[in-house]
């Protein structure tokens, strides 16, 4: 059963076709990497799936439900959570408050000021669990802008995880990290994925990270999927080498 299915997803920005007829099927529990050179449309694909902007054409189904054109805030409630390429936090709030904002979103009701405090307690509890998974517990009460870049990126993952998503979309989780930070992020992600329930779509430039985590790889090039398969197939693919990997090694 496919948890996510995109059919001919297309996005135009004026005359530019950033995504062209992208078909993608992701199985439940799969770890999928989306790779491609800069400007290939990776972030656009993420944004079109999770409702940052509507796709120009095409459809997206999540768990069999049509989520095309839905708003971000509603898509979260279906079970898709994501992180962003650029760090995107609430700088003056504490780490645990940052996560609580994420974890409260799916909790129901209690919009009343007084009822809200019990919801907040539940949100905090979920936040603590996520902190534990990401090994950030010691930092819980620091303002998020005092964290190192690496910890801030982990915090973003913690925020997404705290929503108990079915599908987690990570947009370059190791971008800007040192070698050691990248390694520890990969270790933490592997830990998270060990249960096998969570489906992940990952945009990543670091090929080592990709081959370390991904079970399947989709290669985007100029808005089109040019290859799709397991890591060995993709590595061996002539099209991919021409379009991407070859150029990458030269650089």
């Amino acid at each position: 059963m496919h948890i996510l299915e995109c059919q001919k997803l297309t996005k135009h920005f004026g005359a530019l076709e950033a995504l062209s007829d992208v078909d993608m099927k992701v199985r439940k529990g799969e770890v999928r990497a989306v790779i491609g050179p800069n400007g290939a449309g990776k972030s656009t694909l993420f944004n079109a799936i999770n409702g940052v902007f509507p796709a120009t054409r095409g459809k997206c189904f999540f768990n069999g439900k049509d989520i095309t054109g839905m708003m971000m805030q509603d898509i979260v409630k279906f079970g898709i959570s994501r992180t962003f390429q650029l760090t995107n936090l609430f700088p003056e709030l504490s780490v645990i408050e940052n996560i609580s904002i994420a974890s409260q979103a799916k909790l129901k009701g209690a919009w009343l000021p007084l009822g809200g405090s019990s919801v907040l307690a539940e949100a905090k509890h979920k936040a603590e669990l996520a902190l534990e998974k990401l090994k950030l517990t010691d930092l819980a009460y620091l303002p998020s802008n005092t964290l190192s870049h690496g910890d801030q990126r982990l915090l973003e993952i913690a925020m997404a995880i705290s929503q108990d998503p079915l599908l987690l979309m990570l947009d370059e989780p190791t971008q800007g990290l040192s070698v050691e930070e990248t390694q520890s992020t990969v270790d933490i992600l592997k830990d998270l994925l060990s249960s096998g329930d969570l489906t992940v779509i990952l945009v990543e430039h670091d090929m080592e990270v990709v081959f370390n985590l991904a079970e399947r790889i989709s290669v985007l090039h100029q808005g089109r999927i040019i290859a799709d398969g397991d890591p060995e197939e993709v590595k061996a693919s002539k099209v991919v080498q021409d379009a991407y990997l070859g150029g990458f090694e030269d650089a």
Partner: protein
Amino acid sequence: MLGAYIGYTVAIYTGSFFLALIIAPILVACFGIVFEKLLLSPLYKRQDGGAYLMVTFGLAVILAEAIKLTWGADPKGVQIPEMLRGIVIVFDFPFPKYRVFLIIIGVLMALSAWLFLEKTRIGLLIRAVSQNPQMVNALGTNVVFIRNLVFAIGCGLAGMGGVLAAPMVTAFLGMGSSVIIDAFVIVIIGGMGSFLGSIIGSLLVAFVLVFGAYYVPDLALAIIYLLMLIILIVRPGGLLGKEE
């Protein structure tokens, strides 16, 4: 101002000041929601602060005229309720009971606003929206709803202020603008976006106003602006605000 007039009307009809204190803020908040939905929300996309200023200022003018047509141009006195008349002795000084009541209400409101912002889910969301609204939205919360709510609460509190002020200064046309300048100075002094800053700012402005008027009456009108000037020179972001 609207709060004061509605409060006056409710107090006249029901004979209860306290009922006015509850009903007027709710009505003003409802009015605020309608105003926000109809006139302000179309402006959110424009990212243009000037547009808000013009629309709200325009509304203030219309509101003042509407009040004049409805209630007439002469000031409307509101009776201080029976139990708050008279004086109490505070540290050997006679003190009007109603002023003590106002001080208590002020402290209570400040305290509950703080608790609301710090300890509730909506409070957390309000603080988050003020820092990064797009992210709040991306995390699955309806930001428009939060904005509406904050606006309604603000209007409600303003309405309450109007009712509370009415017995002391009567409800009169222009009472709004007399408050708004002081409020502006307080926020600037305390620092934009700082809750504690605006409390400190309001106390500072109040003391400077009262003692300034007593000791240097010639400067009475200018004195809070001098205070603002000095603070902005020393701390351009206000007392607890951040420099932009």
